[in-house]
């Protein structure tokens, strides 16, 4: 089932952990090196956008703010994480050109670096959500701990799907543009700015069969102190399994060609 290339790639995550850990942290550190607030700019700019959007759209939709505001805020924070993982997957190998063309490298190392820097950004964004949780009293419970397995599943999928997307996007340079435009549309098709309950029952499939929504729920539900539904988990698991199979196939067939595509 699992071939040599894929298993050495996955094993490389543990073997090379110090490298991607250092590089991923450095990415954030370097980006904010000479600013006073440093990475807390991430928190601040997210806070500004979710508070103003929450206020505006809450009144536009005449929604119940106690329900709508936390839903929107958690949705935007989760979406920012998932969409930037997808978008950066397309660039990840092109960015790592200086490593790939100079030594034999594990692709998983670059994916993990990208995942780590996005996780750091996500954690800073999470800080912007804390006041909302208190203002709108979403409550505290053990259900919130489900965010850890949720993030784990997203991490695993980043490894699988990120590598696949990265390889495709390196081969076909148009793919990155396609990916960005799809993501832009998906932002509106995914229940972030609107509540899924607003959809008429015959259109509920829009939210259900949207894989990005399913992954988003892994983050959003625990943030809102709701439990993750079992249907949600099943769909996510199926996507993960498919990703694993394709990950094996693409690596075996195309990993050695990557260096020529860059």
């Amino acid at each position: 089932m699992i071939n040599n290339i894929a298993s050495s790639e996955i094993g490389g995550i543990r073997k090379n952990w110090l490298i991607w850990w250092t590089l991923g942290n450095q990415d954030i550190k370097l980006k904010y090196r000479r600013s006073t607030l440093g990475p807390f700019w991430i928190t601040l700019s997210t806070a500004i956008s979710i508070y103003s959007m929450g206020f505006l759209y809450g009144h536009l939709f005449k929604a119940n703010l106690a329900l709508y505001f936390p839903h929107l805020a958690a949705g935007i924070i989760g979406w920012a994480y998932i969409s930037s993982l997808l978008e950066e997957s397309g660039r990840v190998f092109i960015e790592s050109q200086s490593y790939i063309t100079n030594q034999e490298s594990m692709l998983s190392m670059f994916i993990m670096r990208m995942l780590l820097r996005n996780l750091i950004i996500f954690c800073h964004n999470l800080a912007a959500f804390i006041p909302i949780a208190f203002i709108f009293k979403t409550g505290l419970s053990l259900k919130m701990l489900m965010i850890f397995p949720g993030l784990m599943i997203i991490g695993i999928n980043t490894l699988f799907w990120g590598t696949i997307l990265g390889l495709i996007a390196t081969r076909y340079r148009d793919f990155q543009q396609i990916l960005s435009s799809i993501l832009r549309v998906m932002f509106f098709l995914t229940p972030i700015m609107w509540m899924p309950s607003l959809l008429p029952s015959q259109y509920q499939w829009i939210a259900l069969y949207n894989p990005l929504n399913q992954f988003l729920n892994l983050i959003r539900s625990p943030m809102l102190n709701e439990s993750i539904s079992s249907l949600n988990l099943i769909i996510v698991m199926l996507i993960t399994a498919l990703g694993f199979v394709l990950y094996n196939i693409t690596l075996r067939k195309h990993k050695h060609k990557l260096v020529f595509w860059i």
Partner: protein
Amino acid sequence: MSSIELHNVCLDYIIQNGTPSIKQTLAKFLQAPLKKEPSVHNSTFRALNNINLSIKKGDRVGLIGSNGAGKSSLLRVLAKIYQPNSGNIEVNGNISSLFNLNVGMNQEATGYENIVNLCLLKGFSKSQALSIIPDIEEFTELGKFLNAPVRTYSSGMQMKLVFSILTAFPPEILLIDEVIGVGDARFRQKSLDRLIKFADHCHLIVLATHSNEMIKEYCNKVVVLNKGEIVFSGEPQPAIDFYNQKFVVC
């Protein structure tokens, strides 16, 4: 015991004709049942043809050849960056390669940070990385530039930094492409001295260069490449004479 063995190694480059867009690929895919000949195809280019090479511990091999002869391709095959299309390659020993200046350099990070990055990338620990800093400070003579981002360095300075890091821990196998030429005369001499000094620790070195002095001074074996094939291999002086006669004569 480190060694390199190549048997009948061939390497084809994939050359993409124009931009390989999704549109073209789709068109090719849809036309496949109708047309025998695909409208867009990637051509390949034979970069290395039937290379047989055996390098043993203690060898310091110089690669010479005109531009495009396959020197860099051969080095990258040895470094396992390119996977050969056919033939066998057997490399024993850990490899360190110096192919171009921005080898894993983070341009935004400082010299000191890059020392740590590169050492980690080569599989050394952080404390080992910190332990070579005095050596690098002394060898590169970069002084306070080591605290500045690498993007502010000149190419000679970058060269010094990369070279000194990669040679701080003598690897078993060292592969160097024509980059030392970037440094000034003083640095070239210094780096040659350094290479000679650690030749005892380093089991095996393969060096591609256009500098005959370097070959004469440093190598004990020379391989002449032309159009992806080995046309001569042996002692440095006869190899240089052969190369000059065959390929340099106007």
